[in-house]
């Protein structure tokens, strides 16, 4: 029984556990959230602006730059607004694991059926 008690001792609710009252101590302030909101707005404006520059749309940089901007917005919301940067590692694993599987599935399907396959000459 002593072993049982010792085995569970480190697993009792830690200060950074979900739902713990002092959880928010590690979280950003309202000012940080507002700054992040302004940053997200500026990136969205840049995305739409890029869409309306015909020479840029025709260039090879257009698609990669849009994908990078979208990825930056995605990562910012997930890390700061969803608190994944500050939360327990288990939550990170629960999100990143399926996300990587999903991303690999998308890339795999694009290779099999999409334009990626056509460009590489795998599919006509």
């Amino acid at each position: 029984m002593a072993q049982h008690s010792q085995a569970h001792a480190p697993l009792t609710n830690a200060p950074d556990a979900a739902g713990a009252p002092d959880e928010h101590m590690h979280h950003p302030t309202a000012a940080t959230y507002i700054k992040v909101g302004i940053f997200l707005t500026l990136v969205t404006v840049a995305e739409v602006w890029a869409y309306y520059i015909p020479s840029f749309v025709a260039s090879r940089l257009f698609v990669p730059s849009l994908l990078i901007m979208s990825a930056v917005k995605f990562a910012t919301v997930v890390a700061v607004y969803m608190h994944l940067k500050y939360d327990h590692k288990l939550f990170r694993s629960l999100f990143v694991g399926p996300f990587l599987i999903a991303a690999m599935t998308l890339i795999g399907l694009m290779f099999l059926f999409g334009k990626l396959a056509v460009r590489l000459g795998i599919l006509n």
Partner: protein
Amino acid sequence: MTSLETTMTSANQSMIAGGHHYTTTGLDNRKVAIWAFIGSECMLFTSLISTYLIYKGRSLVGPFPHEAWTNPQTGQAFPPILDIPVTSASTFVLLMSSLAMVLAHNAVVNKHVPKTTTGERILGSSKLWLGTTALFGLIFLMFQAYEFTSFVHEGLTIRTNLFGSSFFTLTGFHGAHVTAGVLWLLSLLAIDFKRGLVPGDALNVDLAALYWHFVDVVWIVIFTLVYLIQ
């Protein structure tokens, strides 16, 4: 006191301190569940986005998303169907709803912190931010309803072509998730008006916030892949 009783007492103490019952991981099961749910939703939306991308550019008849098209049988001309200014506005509204949501969570967590200035009182009003989030969610849905209606009037339905099928399925599923999120937010707002949300309710607001932010990040991807990339 036996060691088992000691463990149970420790668990009960941590239940009181942590606001949730004892778990082997020390984490609240509800929060673990919402992250597992979000992980599964990632795969659902990836399958829908993959379908859209695979079918992109393979429609035999118009209207098309980015190119004009003339029906060879009727001679009717169709302009590019996507309305980027309208969708940009709805994207901005959804982004701002995420900001309002995180401020609502922050307000509930810091409910008992004394507010001296007007700015602190505004930032500390969970009713204001929950209401703003729900309102922005409703505005986004109205934009989507307007978009769907105008597409149907312009001749694009879910049965018209591959673009219509994959577009309406993808954005329709997203819209359904936004609708569920708005209902969740309105229920929290009703509780806030009825008895007031306190720091002990922070996790309940956090769960809704996580869902809402996920709906927002899905739209970030859809906006780029469907609307902006030609």
